């Protein structure tokens, strides 16, 4: 190919590239406009929510003050408490289980591993009723325990920890063993410090999943004091008389922690998605 041909090709390539980027941005707008409308409507006065302006004519925080009067702060703290507790306890349990499955030789390892994985096949609808009966018999209805404890055991976290621990070189372990380190010591002093990436990935995944969970907290906690954000919001939608700007404000408050988490830890979230899809 002569240099002139190459130049023409480059120029065409550049135009094509620009068209592509433009298309990509328009597509991006389709993804973002609905969320933008949520945010912008939350700061409009009640009467102007449906004027559909991209930039509000008048800014009003009426929605926020309305929603905060409805004990929304309480629901926020409930959500925060539940999601944080599940995340921390789950990380401790799953890292232990993942370590055992990846690094310890014991009788029945494969059977245990397959049994754990098989739980991923069980749809929540199958165990819904028994789980409800169980939690009721434990006396956990309308308690945080009832939401938190059943949410902790989950094969996904165990599996990803196992996969991660399998990649850690054996030499490290052997050297520590020679130095007289116990298996538990190896886990605490070698494996855990090395697993920062997977811990952050799973922590964000667990936190987001529990923060956004709706069905189970709705079934367990009927009493209003124990509501989480999602349940409270769903109730406002169903109830007539809650103005749209207040509902929108509630929605914004609900997504703020997740959006912050997402932008700070984006890299780890993407890593986690890739791991769950490919391995």
């Amino acid at each position, binding site marked *: 190919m002569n240099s002139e041909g190459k130049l023409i090709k480059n120029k065409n390539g550049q135009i094509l590239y620009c068209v*592509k*980027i433009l298309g*990509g941005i328009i*597509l*991006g707008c389709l*993804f*973002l406009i*609905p*969320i933008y*409308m*949520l945010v912008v409507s939350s700061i409009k006065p009640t009467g102007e929510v*449906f004027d*559909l302006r991209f930039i509000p004519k008048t800014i009003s925080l009426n929605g926020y003050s309305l929603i905060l009067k409805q004990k929304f702060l309480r629901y926020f703290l409930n959500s925060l408490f539940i999601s944080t507790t599940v995340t921390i306890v789950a990380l*401790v*349990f*799953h890292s*232990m*289980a993942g*370590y*055992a499955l990846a690094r*310890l*030789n*014991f*009788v029945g390892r494969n059977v245990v591993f397959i049994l*754990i994985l098989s*739980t991923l096949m*069980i*749809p*929540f*609808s*199958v*165990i*819904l*009723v*028994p*789980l409800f*009966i*169980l939690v009721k018999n434990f006396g956990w209805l309308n308690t945080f325990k009832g939401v938190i*404890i059943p949410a*902790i*055991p989950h094969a996904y976290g165990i599996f990803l920890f196992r996969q991660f621990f399998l990649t850690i070189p054996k030499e490290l372990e052997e050297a520590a*063993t020679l130095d007289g*380190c*116990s298996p*538990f*010591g190896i886990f605490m002093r070698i494996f855990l410090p090395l697993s920062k990436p997977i811990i952050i990935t799973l922590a964000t995944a667990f936190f987001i999943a529990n923060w*956004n969970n*709706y*069905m189970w907290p709705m079934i367990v906690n009927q009493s209003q004091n124990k509501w989480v954000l999602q349940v409270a*919001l*769903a109730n406002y939608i*169903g109830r007539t008389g809650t103005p749209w700007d207040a509902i929108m404000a509630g*929605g914004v408050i609900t*997504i703020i922690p*997740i959006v912050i988490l997402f932008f700070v830890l*984006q890299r780890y979230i993407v890593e986690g*998605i*890739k791991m769950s*899809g*490919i391995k």
Partner: protein
Amino acid sequence: MGGMINNRGEMLMSSQGFAIGKFFITKKRVEKNLFAYLMLAPDIIGLAIFIFIPVGVALYVSLHEWNGISPMKFIGLKNYATLMLDSQWWHSVRITIVYALMFVPMVYCLSLLIAVFLNSITGKIQGFLRTVYFVPFTVSTIVLSIIWLFMLDPRRGFVNEFLHIFGIPAQSFLGNPKQALFCIEFITAWTLIGYYSIIFLAVLKDIPVIYYEAAKLDGANAFQLFKSITFPMLKEVNVFVLVVTTIASFQVFDQVKVMTNGGPAGATNVAVFYIYTNAFDYLKLGYSSALAFVLFVIMFVFSMMLLKITRGGVRE
């Protein structure tokens, strides 16, 4: 736990050094197994109590008539016989299958298309657009429902205003039995496409550029490149995405509960919603457990069929 860990280093070495340790139950071997199971215990016990036992209980309850308060009455397979003739249940199953048949191809094609598109651009803009497409995924189903109830408002909503520009009359969307299911589908897809395109993109990025260059030298066009190189390389991830989205579409519930509550006129009364209503509104706990098992079987058959098709289709 302290005592168990003592002399651990010595112990491991001896068990590696002598094959004999495999055949005799030594104190050290017992300790080693004990340690492993102690590490696994919290999760194993948790999964047993909150998943395995409930599955067993569900099977047991499904053989009974029970409202959750009065004593259970054993009725054998009667619940299963009843559901066979329950036209409302099969209506729900049909809706769910229709939902899956539209939802799975839609999410699959759009995510793959976006991933291929993202893969064809380079640099920071790729990462930026990927992030933008992913944002809806982080929004909870409830907030998502709020957003779209607003966007799709029959009288003054954003989408209707937009259609108005093109002279299309206002639609009632979620209030229209013919449109409601599709709207829910579209809304759910809107949140998931960014997620699945990240998965596709990760795989696409791993395909060696050499393959494409070699094929281009042989004069292959873009479509041929996709058909002969890209698509076969996606085999594993195709199976993953198709199976996971199929399972997810059989489980759809939250959106329906909040946006349409099964309506209008039962148009979005999907299977899990019907199961939920039977359990918590009609208090037919035994019956709803039976329904859940049947749904599980249907879902399982669908996933297996899908596995067969995708495996077979790629091999040739």
